[in-house]
C-alpha cells in the first residue's frame, strides 16, 4: 500500500471517529452519529461472510490435498453446510440439531475444563515460595466463600472470601481497568494523528 493510500485510510477512520466524539460531547448531530455507529454493525455482517469463505476454503483445500486427518476437515465442512441448509429450508430440524447436538456438544466440551482444572491443582500447585502459599490460601478462602459449604463450616469464610474479592482483587481489577482505559485513549489519539498505522500495514 502506498504512503498516500495509507494516509487516506487513516483519515477515513479518523474523520468518522472525530465526528462521533464531537456528537458525544456536544449532543449535536446525534442522528448522523447514530448512523455512523451502525456502520460497524454492517461491516461485522460482511466479516461473517468473509469468515465463512475462509473457513470453507481452508478446509476444502485440506480435503483436496488429502493432508493429514483430512476426513475431519470434510466433516467440518459437511457439518457447516448441512446446518446452513437446514437453517434455510427446515427451521424446526435446524432448531432440533442446535438444541440436541450443537448445544450439548459445546457444553460437554466446556465441562472438560473442570477435569483439567483438577489435574492442574494436583500437579502445578506446590508451595515452593511464600507467594505461592499466599495465593493458595486465598484460592481456598475464595472457594469457601463461593460454595455454600463454606458458610456451613464457619460464618467467617464468606466474610474473608468476600474481603479478598472486594479489596485486593477489586483493587487489582481497578488498576487493570484504568490501564486499559488509558491504553484505549492512547491508541485512539495515536490513530487520530496518524502515528498508529499497523492496521494498514504501516
Amino acid at each position, binding site marked *: 500500500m502506498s504512503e498516500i493510500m495509507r494516509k487516506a485510510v487513516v483519515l477515513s477512520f479518523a474523520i468518522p471517529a472525530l465526528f462521533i466524539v464531537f456528537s458525544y460531547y456536544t449532543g449535536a448531530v446525534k442522528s448522523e452519529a447514530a448512523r455512523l455507529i451502525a456502520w460497524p454493525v454492517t461491516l461485522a455482517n460482511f466479516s461473517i461472510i468473509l469468515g465463512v469463505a475462509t473457513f470453507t476454503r481452508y478446509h476444502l483445500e485440506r480435503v483436496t490435498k488429502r493432508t493429514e486427518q483430512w476426513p475431519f476437515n470434510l466433516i467440518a465442512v459437511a457439518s457447516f453446510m448441512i446446518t446452513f441448509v437446514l437453517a434455510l429450508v427446515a427451521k424446526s430440524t435446524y432448531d432440533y440439531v442446535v438444541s440436541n447436538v450443537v448445544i450439548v456438544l459445546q457444553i460437554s466440551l466446556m465441562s472438560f475444563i473442570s477435569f483439567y482444572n483438577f489435574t492442574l491443582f494436583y500437579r502445578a500447585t506446590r508451595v515452593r515460595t511464600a507467594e505461592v502459599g499466599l495465593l493458595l490460601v486465598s484460592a481456598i478462602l475464595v472457594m469457601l466463600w463461593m460454595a455454600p459449604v463454606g458458610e456451613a463450616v464457619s460464618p467467617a469464610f464468606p466474610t474473608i472470601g468476600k474481603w479478598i474479592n472486594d479489596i485486593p482483587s477489586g483493587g487489582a481489577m481497578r488498576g487493570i*481497568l484504568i490501564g486499559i482505559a488509558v491504553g484505549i485513549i492512547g491508541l485512539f489519539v495515536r490513530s487520530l494523528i496518524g502515528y498508529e498505522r499497523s492496521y494498514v500495514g504501516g
Partner: protein
Amino acid sequence: MSPKLSPLNQDRLIFIVYILLIALPSLLVVGLPLPVTSLAKSFHSTIEGVRDRGVVLWVTDQTFGTWVELGSGEIAIYKHLFSLAQRRGIRLVFATTYNADGAVLSASIVQDHIIPGGFAKGLKYGENWVQLGWLPGWEASLRGLVTDIHKVARADYFGTPIEKIPMMKDITSVKDIDLLGHSGYYIDEYGRQWGGLGKPWVVSISATTVAMAKPWFEKGIVTTYLNGQRGCAEYEALTGYRGLATSAMDAQSLGHLLAIAILIVPNALYLARKGLRRSNSTR
C-alpha cells in the same frame, strides 16, 4: 511398599472421585443452606422496580460455554421479566451482540420455558416482547442499541422489519428504556458503551470474571450483579423459579471441597517431605 500410581492413573483416580462427588447430590440431596446475599436481593428489587409499562432491554450475550454456569439463572430472569410483563405490562426487548450463541439460547428459553410454562399467556409477540436476535459488532451494537435501535436492528430474529413491530414504534433509544441488563462473561465492553447513561443496569456474570464487575459496581455504573452460578441460585430462590443452579449448589460445594483437598493434601505431603529431608541433612 505400596505400589505407586502412574500419573495417568493418578488423573483417572481424581476424575473418578470428582464424577462420583458431583453425581452424589442427584442421589442424596444434601441441601446445604444458601444465604441470599444483598447483591441478589438488589438484583431482584431493581427488576421489580421497573415502572408499569416500562421497557427492559436485556442482552443475552452468553455462549454455550457460559450457559453451563449462567443458563439456569437466565431462565429465571426471563421468567421473572415475562411475569412482570403479564402483571404490569412491562415491555421486553431481547438482543444479542457478542455472538450467535446468545440469540439461539434466548430463542430456546422462550420456546422451551416461557411459552410452555405459561409465562407468555396473555402476551403477544411484537406488542409485549420482541427478540432482535444477534446484532454482530458487539461494542458497536451495544452502543447502537442505546443510541438508535432502529439503525442497528433493521429486522427482528424472525426477519420481521423493525418498523412493522408495533412496540418498537416508540422504543428508539435509551431514553425509552427503563432498565438495561446483560448476561455473559464480560463487563468492560458494556461499561464502556452503557456507562453514564443514567439508567439502572443489572448484570448476570460468570464467577470467573466477577472481580471485573467490582470497579463498575463501586462507581454506581452497574446497579447490581449476580455472582456466577451461586448468584443464579440465590436469584432462583428469590423468584421461586428454582432450577439447575439451585440443584447444582450441593455439587458445587462437594466439587470445591475436592479441589481444596487436592490443593492441601499433596502440598502437606510435599512440605512434610521437604522438612524431613532438611532435618536428615542437618543431622
